[in-house]
């Protein structure tokens, strides 16, 4: 699982590649730390390379949404694959996280 983060001022862009599961979730949580630390960040995460997420991954996405919006920023997930999107739909996450 790789997470590549770039930013232009407060505009953050992250690209995910691989799977978030038992073996990679801890590392993913560490890798997104810059997105949690930046106040008022406008964050866009490209999920087109995200092949799979377990419930651990969902927890991290929820934490991203809570922290980024509490800091006055915004989060958008884009390019999600349909199997991953279904998991966000079933858990109601599609209603609380912006997905395009």
């Amino acid at each position, binding site marked *: 699982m790789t997470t590549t983060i770039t930013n232009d001022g407060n505009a953050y862009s992250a690209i995910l590649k691989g799977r978030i*599961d*038992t*073996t990679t979730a801890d590392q993913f949580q560490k890798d997104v730390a810059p997105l949690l630390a930046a106040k008022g960040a406008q964050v866009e995460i490209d999920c087109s390379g995200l092949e*799979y997420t*377990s*419930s*651990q991954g*969902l*927890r991290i996405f*929820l*934490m991203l*949404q*809570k922290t980024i*919006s*509490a800091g006055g920023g915004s989060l958008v997930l884009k390019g999600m694959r*349909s*199997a991953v999107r279904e*998991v966000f739909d*079933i*858990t*109601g996450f599609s*209603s*609380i*996280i912006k997905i395009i």
Partner: protein
Amino acid sequence: MDLRFDPIHGKTAEIIDAMMASPDMPEDDSLRFKLNLCIEEAVGNVVNYAYEGGMGYIDVHTDLEDGVLTIRLTDSGKPFNPLEKDDPDITLSAEDREIGGLGIFLCKQMMDSLDYRYEQGRNIFTMKLKVN
């Protein structure tokens, strides 16, 4: 397919991989995704919570009959019913959503049936899914 892992400490990924490689598993990607997610949840619970230090066994069983895949996990650890947790309230806002409880909720939505029983000192967790 029937396999036993003993002890189970640190073996969550290995157990999941072995189950996903079972000849009973479907080839359809969407079904495999759902199964992977539920197996990961169920196996993770046993590896993390059933035994002190993960020192105990898990038996995993898969079979395919009349288009229905059955997966059964058995362990002799602490009695633990993953189904008795309340479902998360999925209508809450992001600020109010609880971080936990999602895994088993997903299994309930994605599998056709889930069954838990505690018999003769064993936790027995069974999932069924129509695969064709």
